[in-house]
């Protein structure tokens, strides 16, 4: 554990924890709004910001934040007003960003080699100044994602309803993509611009396998994000691999493991649905017309109920009894 005493490792681990928390937090909203690949596109756009910084000699991180946020807000407004023809407009913007970044970097005389620290991350070379920017922006993203969780959930779950209760829907939508852009740029030194989207999406998908509840799945996704980011950082130091790549590989491994675990959980949850308390005495109220024959695997939820099985559908619990069904 002597590596913990190394200053660059401490900085790397802190940056990894912040990225591991922020990326799945904002990613939860993107996945919900079917914008899973937005992070990837924004990563391409941020390359233009980095290229511009290399050419002008400005600090890459703040400039990339500005370029990426401006692009993200523009995309969201274009989407809302229906001015982009599907994916084509976005594709042009994203690949334009990537090529502009590469061009600007080569014009700066530093070659495209310098860019790779941003494209694939360079976690172990983060300096103290960058760490402060990463920490500050990470806190902003987390406060927004957790503090406004009920509002952002309402807006992304049911936009018309959110409008009818007076929520500022457009403001929230723009804020989500703007903060996704911030997260992308914050993560570019840790996992890199080309891989950041994985950390925004994969832990969310893993959590969705395992837990019920929007809030709970966001928190679990953040835990998986931190696990992958910290594991990848330590592993890349030990085995001398690229940290960004290892972080993403660990995320995907956790996702793969969540499949069998979710199957087990589903099996354990089914009997847990049994209503043990507040159980009314078994009634002998006959159902009305009931042409459907309930049986194991008939598609209706089966619940153990005092020594027999109730089948639940449409708000009824039906129990087979001497050739008819009772309402339970």
């Amino acid at each position, binding site marked *: 554990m002597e590596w913990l005493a190394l200053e660059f490792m401490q900085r790397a681990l802190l940056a990894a924890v912040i990225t591991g928390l922020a990326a799945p937090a904002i990613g939860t909203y993107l996945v*919900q709004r079917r914008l899973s690949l937005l992070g990837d596109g924004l990563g391409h756009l941020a390359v233009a910001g980095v290229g511009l910084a290399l050419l002008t000699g400005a600090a890459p991180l703040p400039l990339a934040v500005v370029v990426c946020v401006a692009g993200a807000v523009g995309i969201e407004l274009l989407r809302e007003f229906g001015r982009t023809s599907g994916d084509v407009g976005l594709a042009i913007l994203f690949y334009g960003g990537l090529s502009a970044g590469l061009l600007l970097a080569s014009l700066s005389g530093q070659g495209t080699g310098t860019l790779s620290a941003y494209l694939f991350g360079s976690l172990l070379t983060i300096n103290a100044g960058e760490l402060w920017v990463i920490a500050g922006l990470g806190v902003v993203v987390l406060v927004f994602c957790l*503090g*406004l969780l*009920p*509002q952002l*959930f*309402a807006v*992304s*779950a*049911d936009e*018309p*309803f*959110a*409008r*009818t*209760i*007076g*929520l500022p829907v457009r403001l929230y939508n723009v804020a989500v993509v703007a903060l996704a852009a911030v997260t992308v740029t914050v993560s570019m030194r840790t996992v890199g611009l080309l891989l950041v989207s994985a950390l925004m999406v994969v832990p969310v998908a893993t959590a*969705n396998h395992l*837990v*019920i*509840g*929007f*809030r*709970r*799945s966001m928190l679990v996704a953040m835990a998986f994000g931190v696990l992958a980011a910290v594991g990848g950082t330590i592993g890349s130091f030990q085995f001398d691999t690229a940290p960004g790549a290892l972080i993403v590989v660990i995320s995907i491994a956790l996702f793969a493991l969540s499949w069998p675990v979710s199957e087990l959980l589903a099996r354990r949850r089914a009997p847990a649905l049994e*209503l043990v308390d*507040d159980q009314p005495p078994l009634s002998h109220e006959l159902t*009305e017309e009931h042409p459907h024959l309930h049986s194991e695997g008939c598609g209706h939820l089966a619940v153990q109920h005092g020594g027999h099985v109730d089948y639940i*559908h*449409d*708000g*009824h619990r039906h129990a087979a009894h001497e050739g008819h069904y009772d309402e339970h």
Partner: protein
Amino acid sequence: MSSPDSPAITADHVDVVLSGVPIVRQATFEIGPGESVAVTGNNGSGKTTLMRALLGLVPHRGTIRLFGTELGRFAQWRRIGYVPQRSSILVQQATAREVVATGRLGLRRPLWPASSTDRRAVGEALAAVGLSDRAGAPFVRLSGGQQQRVLIARALAGEADLMVWDEPLAGVDQATQGVLAGVLRELREHGRTVVMVLHEPGPLEPLIDRAITLVDGRVVADGPFLASAGGHEIHEIPHAQAHHTGLEVV
């Protein structure tokens, strides 16, 4: 200006045109506080579009006022409880309780945690629709009738003065219909205004004061709810004739 006696809804010569097609034409009516009003008419008669226009979800021409305030300047959205025709919620992992809790957001300040009052209101709304035991279940796995009940509970949680329900009975089982009748009775007792799009009044029939009937986007009848009118298909009649015959639209 808004005053306690202002009508809940005023529609004055309201037109809605969507993609060049007139959907609602010259709709004019007023709904007073505490009224339970059914909006009836055949499929495609413009009922849902009219409801969406009243809530500012589609653009309109003419004048709409909510509680006496012009729609464009209306800001008291927490007084409105909207139940859409069917759920568009596809969030895999959201629980019924989380969906219902969004109904409180009009009353909550951003960045503040839910108060005990908020939590109690959500619990009571779930109990009112008989879903307390399903509160923790994923919304998308509930049956159609249960999802409809969750959407009603979401509107109830906001303690709105004006409920706008779009086809609350469409495709729901009898148990849910009975639950909705109970909810409507309770709302009436508390003096709330309820406007609902209905095809078949079912068990809600005795609880409806008045029916507004649309044919081809026009209001052709507006008056006391007649049991005979509610349960039958409304045949298109020339609207001039409808004005003459008043309520005899059966």
